[in-house]
């Protein structure tokens, strides 16, 4: 409880009827993994594209005992993350954290935390465009039919185009997945690096698209398979160097431009993961020298 709760608002901003409606959509989404459930998305006190879908889902599942973490591109301290965290601190009075392990609900934009999620945690994704087939087939009636009849050949046309043009599957984010062997799903614009983390995850994964008015879900311990070709199997992004601050390998890195002479560094996109490792004494190439070490 880091800020006094606002008066005049219901718990977690949304009124109880709205939360019921959204919870019904969530339950349906969990019952049919990967299926996009329409819901009556509300106006939120933030613009579309800033996470209105995720905020509504979080508001509907959050309770007074929950501990909330919000990340934006892996970072706990960007505008979007800070303001959404403050929003729930003030409207629901819940505790907030930046530590992945301490959180019960994690709302995320474009990343899955590096630290493995555990039973009982809920990961809420902010989704801009829920329909993976949208750019291939503009008609909603047609994409719904394609989902209903499991006609997903078109998605492979996109991957084919990637290989024909670039020699490999060049889709690096919003990489399409099949959920529980049935529905084709857009994992929101997370890097494909995070796709394997969705597979058999112990955490409940909820996806909210506010502007497009859709909710979908991946229940805990559900198969999530990234699409690929037999001779061009799915691969995650690889990095040449470890994180410049904590020296971590096998994590997703952000490029940070250091000067106007081409200087750059690659650091963990997950700030909590990087910070924790630095506290444990891990150091990268560009870390400031450890206290007490030779000057």
């Amino acid at each position: 409880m880091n800020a006094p709760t606002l008066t005049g608002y219901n718990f977690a901003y949304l009124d109880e009827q709205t939360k019921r409606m959204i919870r019904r959509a969530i339950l349906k989404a969990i019952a049919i993994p990967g299926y996009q459930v329409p819901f009556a998305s509300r106006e939120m006190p933030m613009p579309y594209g800033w996470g209105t879908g995720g905020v509504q889902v979080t508001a509907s599942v959050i309770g007074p005992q929950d501990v909330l973490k919000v990340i934006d591109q892996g970072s706990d301290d960007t505008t979007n993350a800070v303001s959404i965290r403050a929003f729930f601190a003030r409207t629901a009075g819940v505790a907030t954290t930046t530590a992945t392990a301490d959180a019960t609900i994690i709302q995320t934009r474009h990343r899955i935390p590096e630290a493995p999620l555990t039973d009982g945690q809920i990961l809420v994704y902010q989704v801009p465009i829920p329909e993976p087939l949208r750019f291939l087939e503009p008609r909603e009636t047609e994409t719904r039919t394609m989902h209903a009849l499991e006609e997903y050949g078109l998605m492979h046309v996109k991957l084919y185009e990637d290989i024909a043009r670039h020699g490999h599957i060049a889709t690096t984010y919003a990489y399409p997945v099949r959920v529980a062997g049935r529905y084709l799903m857009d994992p929101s614009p997370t890097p494909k690096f995070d796709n394997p983390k969705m597979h058999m995850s112990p955490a409940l994964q909820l996806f909210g698209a506010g502007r497009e008015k859709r909710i979908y879900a991946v229940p805990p311990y559900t198969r999530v398979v990234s699409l690929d070709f037999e001779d061009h199997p799915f691969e995650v992004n690889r990095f040449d160097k470890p994180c410049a601050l904590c020296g971590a390998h096998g994590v997703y890195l952000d490029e940070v431009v250091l000067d106007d002479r081409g200087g750059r560094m690659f650091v963990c996109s997950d700030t909590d993961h990087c910070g924790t490792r630095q506290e444990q004494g891990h150091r990268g190439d560009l870390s400031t020298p450890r206290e007490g070490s030779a000057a």
Partner: protein
Amino acid sequence: MTQDLPLLSVRRLGKSYGARTGCRDVSFDIHAGEVLAVVGESGSGKSTLLNVLSTQLAPTTGEIHYRMRDGVMRDVFALSDAERRFLLRTDWGFVHQDPAQGLRMTVSAGANVGERLMAVGQRHYGHIRHTAVDWLGRVEIDAGRIDDAPRSFSGGMRQRLQIARNLVTHPRLVFMDEPTGGLDVSVQARLLDLLRGLVADLGLSVVIVTHDLAVARLLSHRIMVMRHGTVIETGLTDQVLDDPREPYTQLLVSSVLQV
């Protein structure tokens, strides 16, 4: 025994748009390897008939039976949506007059040809690409153009690409709506030549709608003349074109310019 059954059997088919008639009381059979031309002037109901035959429009009256690959005749409008759509992208083909309607203009030629293969579950990039190269060759498109988008193709190439895209799953029945419309005469001649070769090689059954009697003469075995939504004359192509019985057919045949 099943070889004796027609591939497509149409009985008393009619389609009306409210009080207006698109076509009515059309009956015919097509056997495997047979090419049927439907001719008539604009507004005679040819395209309506083709759209009903290919299940893109629901008929007002009548029924269509199709001999499935297992040899059983089935009412195509009694099939489930899933079965019908599967039929449309495997066993049937549809060549539009405007290639932009039948192609995906934003993806490469190779992906256009490969789409049906991926739709039926092929997941090996190398094989799909190999088949695409093979089919581009068959329709006389340079294999070097495989990664180009159809919008960079000429009209004739687009039409040939559309044909390759349809034939890649070895359909047994192909519907063609004025496939040579909008092409200049020399390109038309090459396309017809190509089509004739493919139809003979693959043993395709074709329903081709055209207003060009020369196309009908070159490609089809049998012909159906339509006027005001009804079939007024049917028969072997040579017979109907050389010795037309109905006054309207005589008019149609005599209006062809003799060069």
